[in-house]
């Protein structure tokens, strides 16, 4: 396999390498859809430059939590988010917040790769242009840098004008990551970014996420416990009780997996439940 090369800040991987500088502060965050609470009173701090994994069974509100952080919940009719969430000094739940500017800061990667039905180049140029980057050479440089950062440059440099949908699934997902990175965000939210990919493509994307550590704050939802263990500095375990999602335990990844404080966590990470 041809491994891509990276230029991002390479920080030694493995748990507990990061200095805990608070980047996102969440307090008593609840999400409800049409009056039905799906996530109840979650409080946790997300640390700068670290990878934080959200684990737990399906339907326990992990994706809702993620969507609340970049206000993508605004798109869901009837969705309501309450509590407090701060991104640095910014109040994330402020109704008058410029969410378009916020989403440039906090990028998101979805479960199913969703490149636009445009050329590879246009996929990256479109969001840049929308955020006011018009200069041709600057656009070209940023496109090349982003593709380089996700290890896609060598693979697609000769066919930048080819349709993005003709790329393989793994390449599409890396293109989507490049498309988020091209806006130079500081936080990347990832909603099961590898689950729609085959094992080899999944490994390439995981390797890429590994290399985002240090340069970006990554919050990743994953059902792959081994992946969470390999990637994360911190892990948050969500569980559903009485049809409402809750945060059960949060801490350093090693502690969550090796000496969980809660019985539910212990059973889940041991593969006994969920």
């Amino acid at each position, binding site marked *: 396999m041809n491994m891509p090369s990276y230029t991002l800040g390479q920080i030694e991987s493995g748990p507990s390498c990061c200095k805990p500088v608070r980047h996102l502060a969440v307090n008593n965050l609840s999400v409800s859809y049409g009056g039905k609470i799906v996530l109840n009173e979650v409080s946790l701090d997300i640390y700068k430059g670290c990878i934080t994994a959200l684990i737990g069974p399906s339907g326990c509100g992990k994706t809702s939590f993620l969507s609340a952080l970049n206000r993508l919940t605004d798109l869901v009719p009837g969705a309501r988010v309450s509590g407090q969430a701060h991104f640095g000094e910014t109040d994330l739940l402020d109704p008058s917040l410029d969410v378009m500017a916020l989403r440039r800061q906090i990028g998101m990667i979805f479960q199913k790769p969703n490149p636009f039905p445009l050329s590879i180049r246009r996929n990256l140029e479109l969001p840049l242009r*929308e955020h006011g980057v018009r200069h041709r050479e600057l656009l070209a440089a940023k496109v090349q840098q982003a593709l380089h950062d996700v290890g896609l440059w060598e693979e697609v440099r000769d066919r930048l004008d080819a349709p993005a949908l003709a790329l393989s699934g793994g390449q599409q997902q890396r293109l989507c990551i490049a498309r988020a990175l091209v806006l130079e965000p500081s936080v990347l939210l990832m909603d099961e970014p590898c689950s729609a990919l085959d094992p080899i493509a999944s490994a390439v994307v995981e390797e890429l996420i590994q290399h985002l550590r240090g340069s970006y704050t990554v919050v990743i939802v994953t059902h792959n416990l081994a992946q969470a263990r390999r990637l994360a500095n911190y892990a948050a375990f969500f569980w559903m009780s009485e049809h409402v999602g809750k945060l059960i335990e949060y801490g350093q990844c090693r502690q969550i997996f090796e000496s969980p404080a809660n019985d539910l966590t212990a059973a889940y990470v041991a593969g006994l439940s969920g």
Partner: protein
Amino acid sequence: MVNRLTDQLFTAAVWSAAILVLVMFCWLLGDLLLQGGHHLSWSFLLSAPENAGRSGGIAPILVSTLLILAVALAAAIPLGLATAAWLAEYTRDGGRGARAVRMSLDVLAGVPSIVFGLFGNAFFSIFLGLGFSILSGGLTLACMILPIFIRTSEMGLAAVPDEWRRGAAALGMTRAAALWHLLLPAASPAIATGLMLGIGRATAETAALIFTSGYVDRMPESLSDSGRSLAVHIYELSMNVTGGDEAAYASALILIGLIITINAIAQALSERWLTRRIITA
């Protein structure tokens, strides 16, 4: 054994139905060609009608038809796309307003064209003072094609995968930008289809135009002149002009040719747009 027989019967029925449709179309076209074909010539296309249309050509009528169509499209396309976008993108949870708009459109789509003619006459010709003019006729036609154009475009937009909307929003793109750069191009085949249905209905229209654009067969000098459309011309020749049948058949051939041409152009354009912008693997 019985099953096989039913199957064969069914196959035969399906085939004959399809053949029947084809035969009807060919019959119609053949009839037109037989009766009006020898009347066709370049001078028929390029000269003015004489003797109430029995001889001469249809040049001013072709020009009026195209002008009326252009006015109708110029009014219907922006208004239709905006309404479709509103219905599909801005009121997705189905508020009361959206339901009311959809229901009105569905009712309007079924209203007989003579009613549109009377409305156009009362509103555009008299109330707005546009008189019998190409403008009145074109705007009346716009009202007529809007319902079907809006509903087809709306369905096209609704069929665009949600993941592109979420993807665009997650990149901090505005709804307008997503609509313009992604959703409308992706929905372009449906939009082109809606447009074709509308143009087909508009070019074939007589009842809505008699009271609005009128039936003056002179070459129009501006959009405020009255102008006779091809369909009105055919109606006039076959109903009110004795000995005008041959010219009526020839005009009908031209009308069908016009519709087929516009259809082909729209198809080619939307395909080109597709292969250039919306490329799927």
